[in-house]
């Protein structure tokens, strides 16, 4: 690393998952009543970056691609201790699949420059693909370490040691910087924002908004137009419990337990898993 550590955290703003409902008629998501939040694992990525800054100094930048209403959320994240935020906001970015999303984020990271560590969340609660972080790494030709629980510098400070989760346990990777990380959800406790800092931020707004014209990319590579995949159909609502009986068993706890017992043993018998008499 040459000079101070510069971390950049990719934050995606998503509708709060518990407030999104599905319209069974139109088979679409009703986000109308859902408030927005920063994708939860991205907050863990931010906390990891801030903890590195506490320990090693340096600065933390934030990057988000989304509509203008994302800006206040970036300010709240800045109030936790980050230094600068970049918001990529343009209709041309809309409808991007993972190829176009990662291309756009990578182009912004290149323009911001001098980034040692890019930190993402492990996956987004709405898209849930986990493919953007490796995509960013590929566009920037940087090494990647996904599903990270923790990160530590080695003595030279030009490598990091990352403990990450894999299918059958954990592995420790030695990763040269600059690198792209994705961080496991709830691996740390994101800190509270500092309200004094928030007030000071209002006076001296560190959110830079860029449109497509600010990035050095072919406009044809952005958004829906630049996405090789497209949605060809919206199917019915899967598993939203449409086929479930939703029968309520009522009574005292003992009566409820008894009803449950009867229903469960009857079900097991009919499912060919007979409950053996005692």
């Amino acid at each position, binding site marked *: 690393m040459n000079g101070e550590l510069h971390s950049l955290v990719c934050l995606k703003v998503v509708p709060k*998952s*518990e407030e*999104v409902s599905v319209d069974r008629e139109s088979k679409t*998501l009703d986000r109308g009543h859902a408030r927005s939040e920063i994708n939860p694992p991205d907050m863990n990525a931010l906390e990891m970056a801030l903890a590195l800054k506490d320990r090693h100094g340096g600065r933390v930048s934030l990057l988000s691609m989304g509509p203008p209403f994302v800006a206040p959320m970036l300010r709240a994240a800045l109030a936790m201790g980050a230094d600068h935020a970049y918001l990529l906001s343009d209709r041309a970015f809309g409808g991007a699949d993972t*190829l176009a999303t*990662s291309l756009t984020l990578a182009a912004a990271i290149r323009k911001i420059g001098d980034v040692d560590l890019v930190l993402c969340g492990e996956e987004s609660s*709405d*898209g*849930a*693909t986990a*493919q953007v*972080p*490796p*995509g960013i*790494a*590929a566009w920037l030709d940087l090494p*990647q*370490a996904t*599903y990270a629980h923790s990160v530590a510098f080695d003595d030279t400070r030009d490598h990091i*040691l990352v403990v990450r989760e*894999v*299918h*059958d*346990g*954990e592995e*420790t*990777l*030695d*990763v040269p910087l600059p690198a792209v990380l994705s961080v496991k*959800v*709830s691996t740390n406790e994101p800190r509270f924002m500092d309200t004094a800092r928030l007030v000071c931020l209002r006076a001296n707004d560190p959110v830079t908004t860029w449109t497509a014209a600010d990035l050095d990319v072919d406009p044809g590579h952005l958004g829906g137009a630049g*996405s*090789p995949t*497209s949605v*060809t*159909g*919206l199917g019915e*609502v*899967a*598993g*939203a*419990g449409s086929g*479930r009986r*939703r*029968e*309520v*068993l009522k009574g005292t*706890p003992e009566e*409820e*337990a*008894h009803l449950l017992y009867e229903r*469960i043993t009857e*079900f*097991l018998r009919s*499912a060919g*898993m007979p*409950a*053996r*008499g*005692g």
Partner: protein
Amino acid sequence: MIDPAYTPAEATGIWVFLEHDRGQLAPVSLEMLAKARELASKSGAILTGLLMGHELDAIAGEAAHLDLDRLVVVAHPLLDAFTAEAYAHAAREVILRERPDILLLGATPYGRDLAGRLAVTLRTGLTADCTDLSLDAANGLLLGEVSGFGGGILATIACANHRPQMATVRPGVFARTEAERAAAAPIERVEVDIPASARPVTVVARHRQERADISRADRLVVAGAGARGQLPLIEALAGALHAEIGATRVAVDEGWAGRDRQIGQTGVITHPKLAIVCGASGATQFTVGIDQADLVVALNSDPEAPIFEQADLCVVDDLLPVVRALVAEFESRGEGAP
């Protein structure tokens, strides 16, 4: 639009990335092979398995008997441990040479790492975490079905002009078949050049944990945050029913169940006959993991809890006395055992 690495007209065949570890093929690879065979027999495509690693003779011999038409083996010392960079480098080289039409990978940590990186270096589209795969009757395109918000909505996604058409599939989504070849499929060893610079990352340690596999358990008793402090009771119910224990993420985060028992979007997709869900609110990220259950029983003290929308039998009550009485009933009658 970004120029494709090669065009649909140049592309042929269905490829499945065969993930393996310690000499064992990943279950998800076998599950995908079964689905890929179904697609291949519809389109007449040749089904190829892609095996990458180092010192692969034993596993290649085994893989050649799977239900595939040919096995491509890419062996190199720098592929000894999985790293996304070296694997993507080598896979890209092979794919540009062989030009498959479709490439399927498991949505495991390694599969997703490789897929996300490879799709960008091949400048192609990737449909991640598919819940189903089919071929469009009209044009033969691969259709990937994906769900957003943990199953709240389904979309069908296609990649019209870029090849390969890449998709990942979560473990447990497809059923594997026992189909095997009597005679081994032809094995083609492909040489790749991997410069040391293509493997910047070193795996310095690996800590394996014994992991329970609840994806195929018949019966599950699931602990949510509402069962906090009641784990012995949950264990007693699971014991009485000979069920495996599953958990929501909150329970896992609080450390009273192992991560291998987490059900849902970032956990396991389960297929039980019976799931008894104790004190879970029913977030879609959780319920996507029990959607396939035949019978869902939900206990929750909050009548408004969304879990009741997803359940067959609902008990709106404090779970503690109900589960205690239920356990007593099973124990006194000795029923519930398989």
